[in-house]
């Protein structure tokens, strides 16, 4: 049988392949669901600009054939804010990780959500710092092991979907790499939502999380994630003890409201003296 060509290959910078991801890493699945979600929308691929921080997950935009800004650790949302406000016509997508978004970038995350800036954020939450070799992250489950938690993590993890919902985002969903259909649908909705959209993807890092937590193969990680996922509607009827260690999946928020770059645009339209309005660095005022 002829080898099947990936239908999304056309979106990739083929001259950058092969990629750096380990075999069995969840990042590739998330990339594919992103393209599927994108194709479900009316968005022109050429209008997409991607921004990311630092981490394995943040390497995704570098393989996509669009304008992409691979920034500093934790700061993707700051750069994306400038990019989106500077040119509100761009469809800006941010790829980030649990460490990037919720630890070093935690403050930017809640403020970007508060401003409801029109960005689509895909956070690949593998519960660990993959790129630096398996240290615990702010989403590592209590009791899980990492190279900096050799006796098991004692901290309570963040619930990212709840955190970002509470901070003011207009669209929030959480799915896992074992739910590619629901995930791509959520990404599609996030792309269509004119506001801050946060899609958390619980994913597998077999290389570090798996190895440290007795799930050495990608398959065992996949099974673990699948078996522990509970739909939000079902979870609402369960008590705390039943939900311990479970991954609650589904849509957390879908409440569109005015976003930052539209607000700024309106302010400018109300106040600007048209003769003085310069639109870009390329223009000269004569």
């Amino acid at each position, binding site marked *: 049988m002829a080898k099947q060509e990936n239908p999304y290959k056309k979106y990739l910078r083929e001259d950058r392949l092969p990629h750096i991801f380990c075999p069995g890493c969840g990042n590739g699945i998330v990339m594919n669901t992103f393209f599927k979600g994108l194709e479900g929308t009316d968005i022109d691929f050429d209008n997409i600009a991607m921004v990311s921080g630092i981490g394995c997950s943040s390497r995704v935009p570098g393989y996509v054939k669009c304008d992409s800004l691979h920034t500093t650790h934790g700061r993707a949302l700051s750069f994306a804010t*400038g990019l989106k406000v500077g040119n509100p016509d761009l469809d800006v997508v941010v790829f980030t990780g649990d460490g990037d978004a919720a630890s070093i970038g935690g403050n930017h995350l809640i403020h970007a959500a508060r401003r409801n800036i029109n960005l689509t954020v895909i956070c690949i939450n593998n519960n660990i710092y993959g790129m630096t070799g398996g240290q615990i992250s702010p989403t590592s489950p209590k009791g899980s092991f990492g190279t900096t938690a050799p006796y098991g993590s004692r901290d309570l993890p963040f619930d990212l979907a709840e955190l970002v919902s509470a901070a003011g985002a207009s669209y929030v969903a959480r799915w896992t790499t074992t739910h590619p259909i629901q995930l791509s649908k959520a990404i599609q909705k996030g792309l269509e939502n004119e506001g801050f959209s946060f899609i958390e993807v619980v994913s597998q890092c077999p290389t570090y999380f798996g190895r440290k937590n007795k799930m050495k193969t990608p398959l065992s990680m996949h099974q673990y994630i699948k078996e522990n996922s509970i739909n939000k509607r079902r979870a609402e009827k369960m008590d705390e003890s039943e939900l311990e260690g479970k991954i609650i999946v589904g849509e957390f928020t879908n409440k569109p409201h005015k976003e930052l770059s539209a607000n700024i645009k309106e302010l400018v339209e109300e106040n600007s003296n048209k003769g003085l309005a310069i639109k870009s660095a390329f223009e000269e005022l004569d």
Partner: protein
Amino acid sequence: MVEVRFVQGNEACALGAIAANCRFFAGYPITPSTEIAEQMSILLPKYGGSFVQMEDEIASAGAIIGASWSGMKAMTATSGPGISLMQENIGYGFITETPIVIINVQRGSPSTGQPTMSAQADMMQARWGSHGDYEPIALAPSSVQEFFDFTIKAFNLAEKYRVPVTVLADEVVGHMREKLVIPDDIEIVARKRPEKVDGQYLPFDAPECGTTPMPAFGDGFNIHVTGLTHDERGYPDTNDPESHTKLVERLCNKVLMNRKDICSVKKELCDDADIVIVSCGSPYRSVGAAIKKAREEGIKVGSLKIDTPWPFPEEEIREIAKTAEDIIVPEMNLGQMVHEVERVAAGEANVHLIGKIGGILHKPEEILAKIKEIKG
């Protein structure tokens, strides 16, 4: 029409930014720079631009880089603690060759230090503050007029060389009110879009003055911008020692090789001078009166004012060191630029520091006292 106004230095800075076509500002309030953000929040909407008050200075520095890639001229303004927070993203600006302007209205430090008092304590930080090898451009205004002029110049240099440029002001210049003349024929460097040659555009190549025109995101060039060591295409290339050397040397050389174009000094009464006062920024304000008094007493003193501390105007200082016997460096710190002067003078002249901290500018008498001490 030439416009004459009486304004605060920080306001002049904002007016300069608008005149230079800055249309994006991101910042976080901090004394003594806050009025710049406040002014930009008033002015930008009127001129079709965007103002965002960010959650901190790290975010502000990130946002202006993002805005620059959206095709906007972008600026932030801060002081001491804020400029320290921005350092990592400023380094990102260097390696990605992103034109941005950073205003640092210096205050007493380290740490929270003296929020309302003046200092020149960040001169070396502007040079070496972010990790790694790079050659920054910085301009140091000594008056309200220069704060306006140098802000425009900062934008022009940022665009020409695709580099972050810092305006190293201080509390004195930021908060004083003086006459400002706004000319009607201001030279503005517009950004150049690269020519579209199918797939052949290399965003990190170096045909012109060490760098190449940059597109805006959305222009269709599909470029990748990364803080990792990269090749001419912008693709990460982090393990090849040669690639790294080539990139970093080019980034440094595009500034160093263009010193003649970038560096600016103002020389007065240097031809016959035995002693030359080398100043930078606010301390220059006391130099004239000290020289006048010294000359009245028959001591031949001249002045060399450095407009651009970075890149350091080596040639001009070397020349002075050959003709003068002594060089006096008044600085509002315990000795920073003096080390550069000493390095370049290389023993040809005696270099004397008048380091002053606490927040008050040097008085002409303090400079005169040093002159007399040398002559005495």
